[in-house]
């Protein structure tokens, strides 16, 4: 099925099931209970899971396969967002033309930047991509204000032409992005006892696109082209000696991953039709690097895991405050309770970046293969201990590579 091997197919099906049932899986706690704040099943966050998943999958095609570490990938995400919002302004609120233009535009930018940057490798490549991204950020923020909206960002307005939609369609309200009439922000609630599950059209739209993107990345990983990219990573010189020019392959990988970033940017704009220059800032590029490494660079499922984990932490850990902590440790004696809360407090709430930085450092130091490698090691440990029994969750720790 789908031209995949058995292992890859089961991985794809597993990911598909997880994304389809995400509104249930991410909402394990009943509404109004003390644990309800750990529910991640609200549309906004679920959309971000899959959108950043796409971004990280694309980044992984470049970094995971060829080993070229780009520190400026957010620039393509920004280009995609701007292109999509312009499509909303000029043509129609349908998301299809917006996504198409965003992917094409970011592909063109990636072609140009990649062509220049890939003349160098190693740290020089990282700095070149960083320099290009910072340049684009600075320009979007200042001189290109007529195109990008500058500091306020690019927003929709009532008097935008929207040629295809016609003038009367909006009727006094700024219209919302839709897919042939299905509005992205529409959702349906399912109430089961004290549980509330939200099914959002935007989320499922993004999820379908992510599954397609994931499938494409599996195909790239398993193709002769993917093999060539891996050869570039392991020894470029030897590749040269065999008479192969690695440059077109790396450039193709760079453009593909730039288009993935543009697709993610377009989806971000489709969920919430505005685009700002801060999406192109180099810390945003750093974030996708974090996601990919954290999950496991060069593995299929790693980047998606990393993106999910970072976005979950960003939204959930940053919500915990000291009152909640006191609530958790209330069973301890007073002095001890205060002590424990004081110890943990810097790592939660606004300090979640600290937790992120520490986890990231630990992963780079001890687990260069990321969470996926951690899972594999755990699985290996289990297998050694109980050789006859099934290991706990083979699906999650299944080596993707």
């Amino acid at each position, binding site marked *: 099925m789908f031209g995949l091997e058995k292992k890859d197919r089961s991985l794809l099906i597993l990911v598909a099931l997880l994304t389809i049932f995400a509104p249930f899986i991410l909402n394990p706690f009943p509404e109004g209970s003390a644990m309800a704040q750990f529910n991640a099943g609200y549309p906004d966050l679920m959309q971000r899971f899959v959108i950043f998943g796409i971004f990280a999958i694309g980044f992984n095609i470049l970094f995971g396969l060829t*080993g070229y*570490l780009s520190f400026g990938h957010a620039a393509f995400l920004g280009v995609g967002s701007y292109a999509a919002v312009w499509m909303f302004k000029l043509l129609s609120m349908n998301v299809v033309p917006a996504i198409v233009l965003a992917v094409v535009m970011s592909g063109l930018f990636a072609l140009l930047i990649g062509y*220049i940057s890939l*003349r*160098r*490798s*190693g*740290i*020089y490549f*990282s*700095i*070149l991509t*960083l*320099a*290009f991204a*910072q*340049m684009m950020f*600075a*320009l979007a*923020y*200042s*001189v*290109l204000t007529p195109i990008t909206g500058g500091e306020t960002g690019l927003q929709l307005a009532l008097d935008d032409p929207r040629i295809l939609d016609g003038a009367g369609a909006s009727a006094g309200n700024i219209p919302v992005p839709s897919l042939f009439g299905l509005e992205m922000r529409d959702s349906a609630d399912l109430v089961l006892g004290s549980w509330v599950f939200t099914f959002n059209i935007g989320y499922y739209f993004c999820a379908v696109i992510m599954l397609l993107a994931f499938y494409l990345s599996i195909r790239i990983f398993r193709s002769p082209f993917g093999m060539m990219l891996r050869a570039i990573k392991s020894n470029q010189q030897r590749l040269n000696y065999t008479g192969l020019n690695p440059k077109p392959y790396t450039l193709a990988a760079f453009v593909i991953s730039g288009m993935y970033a543009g697709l993610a940017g377009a989806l971000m704009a489709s969920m919430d039709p505005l685009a700002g220059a801060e999406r192109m800032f*180099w*810390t945003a590029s*750093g974030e996708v*690097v974090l996601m990919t*490494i954290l999950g496991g660079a060069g593995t299929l499922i790693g980047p998606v895991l990393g993106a999910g984990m970072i976005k979950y932490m960003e939204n959930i850990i940053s919500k915990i405050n000291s009152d909640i902590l006191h609530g958790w440790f209330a069973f301890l004696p007073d002095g001890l309770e205060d002590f424990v809360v004081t110890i943990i407090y*810097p790592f939660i709430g*606004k*300090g979640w*970046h*600290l937790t*992120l*930085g*520490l986890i*990231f*450092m630990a992963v*780079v*130091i001890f687990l*260069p293969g990321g969470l996926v490698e951690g899972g594999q090691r755990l699985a290996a440990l289990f297998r050694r201990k109980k050789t006859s029994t099934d290991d706990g969750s083979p699906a999650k720790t299944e080596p993707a590579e």
Partner: protein
Amino acid sequence: MDAILLQVLNGLDKGSAYALIALGLTLIFGTLGVVNFAHGALFMIGAFCAVTLSRLLTLSHEVIDETRTDFLGNPLKVDVPYLYDIFGETAGAAIIDWAVPLSILFAIPVMILIGVVMERGLIKHFYKRPHADQILVTFGLAIVLQEIIKYYYGANPIPTPAPAAFTGSFDFGALIGFEPNTIIYPYWRLVYFAFAALIIGAVFAFLQFTTFGMVVRAGMADRETVGLLGINIDKRFTIMFGLAAAVAGLAGVMYTPINSPNYHMGMDFLVLSFVVVVVGGMGSLPGAVLAGFLLGILESFASMREVIDLIPGINQVIIYLVAIIILLTRPRGLMGRKGVMED
């Protein structure tokens, strides 16, 4: 003519900061071969050394001043720094006023300690790993350091003024025979430039004229041979890491009056400093200094009104543009050695 001179002067202070940070980066890269993304964080920690010292100096206790009353007629409570009790009021006030320059003495041991701990505790384990791993782990460390500072000092910039003697500006133009009031220059920027020149001179003299410096230079050229001669080169490189951290820290200390320190100032400088190092030539100390000043001055020229009118937005991108051109046409940088990190 005076306009050109003014831009050169304006570029000097930023250029000095670039040069100092790039110098430290190059020291680390040249000796240990490590690409240190946490170097900006060291600059930032240096700046917060100054903040810490000026807070320590102004630690106060409350005293009831019988001679004055508040609006209700009660005796007024006044905060009196402990320094006033120890040194008397005038001397105490003078010490507090000079908090930033005094922080230099405070920052040197702190920064060397941080540098040595960083190298022994973390960087040491990354010599054999690929450059990408070094970039990633130091990037993570930079995030951690930045967040720790943010936790203790808050997210807002903390104003840390220069001593009263150096506040304000002077008419530099009149001094060298131009029309008065054409070139006005703040005193502290001149101090910063002089200080940077001093530090840079000291580092070069240290490397050039001491035995220790000679060994380090030999180690930079050929680490294995130096090791074979029975010299413990690792220990000396560790000390050089501490020194590089101190250089970055001092650059931060003295920069506080120019820009109030906040927790992400290091990251802002880091990206540009990397560009500076690459333009100067990876591993070349004079190249780093030269490129630092050059790019600082270039940046200030690009922000002249006439230039911006000609090419809009050039002031935002000039440094990156120069870096891209240099990297593509002369990959080893302005003064880089042939064959070092050239691919």
